[in-house]
């Protein structure tokens, strides 16, 4: 599940200007990881103009790491039963790195969830559902799902 979220985040960085703007502040080559200890996770790298790419070799220490204390806590967040902010507030994650960058990553995750999930599900996953028209949501979601499917099928 976390690998799919990582791919969806990468795809969102190629589909949404707001997410790209958030990420373009970070230095090129900056790496961010979300993981469960001894379990699943994903690492992404910031490229030029706020585009993300997946990092397959996760042995290097990332610039920013968010570690869920247990697999079930990651499941709560990525099955959209608990917002990322609520998960932070419930002490379910440990942050290692610059806090302001983590806040940006959370905003990107929120926007991704608002785009790819039906509104009634996304409302559970974010503090406030953003202003986004149905047309924008459908076109961006289609692009994100398309890019994720392509990655899963073709591996690129």
């Amino acid at each position, binding site marked *: 599940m976390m690998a799919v979220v990582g791919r969806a985040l990468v795809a969102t960085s190629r589909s949404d200007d707001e997410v790209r703007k958030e990420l373009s502040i970070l230095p090129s080559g900056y790496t961010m990881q979300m993981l469960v200890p001894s379990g699943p996770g994903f690492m992404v790298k910031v490229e030029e103009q706020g585009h993300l790419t997946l990092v397959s070799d996760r042995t290097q220490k990332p610039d920013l790491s968010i570690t869920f204390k247990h697999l079930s806590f990651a499941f709560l967040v990525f099955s959209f039963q608990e917002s990322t*902010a*609520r998960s*932070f*507030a*419930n*002490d*379910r994650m*440990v*942050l*290692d790195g610059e*806090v*302001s960058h*983590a*806040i*940006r990553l*959370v905003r990107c995750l*929120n926007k991704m969830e608002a785009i790819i999930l039906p509104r009634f599900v996304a409302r559970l996953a*974010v*503090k*406030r559902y953003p202003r986004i028209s149905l047309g924008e949501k459908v076109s961006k979601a289609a692009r994100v799902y398309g890019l994720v499917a392509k990655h899963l099928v073709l591996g690129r």
Partner: protein
Amino acid sequence: MAKPYYEFFSPVKVIAGHKALEHIPFELKTLGCSRPMIVTDKGVRGAGLIDHVAGAFDSTSIDVAIIFDDVPPDSSLETVRKAAEVYRGNNCDAIIAVGGGSVIDTSKGTNILVSEGGDDLKAYSGAHILKRRLKPFYVIPTTSGTGSETTLVAVVSDLEKNVKLPFMSQFLMPDAAILDSRMTLTLPSHITAMTAMDALTHAVEAYTCLAANPLSDAYAYSAVKKISENLMTVMEDPKDADARLELAQASTMAGIAFSNSMVGLVHSLGHALGAVCHLPHGLCMSLFLPYVLEYNRDINGDKVGELLLPLAGSELYATTPKEQRAAKAIAFIRELRDKLYNSCQLPRTLKETGKVSVGQIEQVAQLAIDDGSIIYNPNESDFDELVDILKRAWE
């Protein structure tokens, strides 16, 4: 609604009272210490506050080994290294911090070095790096606001790289916080007002933001009541030792509350304003508290409304319909700010500070939106909304 999950941790012994300092020698003895080092700054020492602490060791078998009073307003790696050197050079076996935030953070950093060895404090920066107990450590706050005596965090500046290094570990928490009315009795009125508003903000945000939990609520609620009942008493009679002690306890209780349930948007904006305009932290809290409560009211108005009871008392609470209590609580805080303005000219608006320009508003909003505490705010904020709050706080 029941809280589905929370954590609460508060291992700091609180020693509070008019003769609390005199309990320190016994506390040191119980941990086998006989050569404590006092860490403080020149302002605290110049105000004669160290005399009260040193006097507590008269006629005991413990001597203060050395007083290190070279702590600047912002703690730095260099200061921590110097303090560790002094500690080692004098064969000390415990640290007593006497002062405010910078002194306490310096002491926490010093304790890492003298306990773990070496001079590289940077190696311990980050969350949960420390793995064992440090040397015995005591904190005597000289203001009633920061609550640092109960928190597991320290921030030390790396002046070479111009960055602030955070340290977070349960082992940084002191063995005891000593609250003695003598230590705040001579605090100037404007500092008393600012630091009390800092403590009030800690309590209010701890109670109303996302990570609030039943135990932190209990501390926050009582802290709000103590501040509401005693702040103006102290402003009118600064030598009222009982009221001073109540404020000191309120600050510590608010510290326990927010170290377990964090803070929200008032702090995000306050941190940003402090960084851009170099205003004292407590003043920044006072400037934004009512505006942020108003902004969040649609989301958490029920909890803000509950605070009307400790703020204004039972009569007003009982005669106010439930749906109007949040607005009344916010109005009460505005009135408190008016009283403080009349008493010591504590600014109520950004304009009144005389140190903020309209042109800086967007810069403050940009910094605030990336502040770590914003994630705990119940309302999701965007840049335009932060600009709007800042404009409301302008005049």
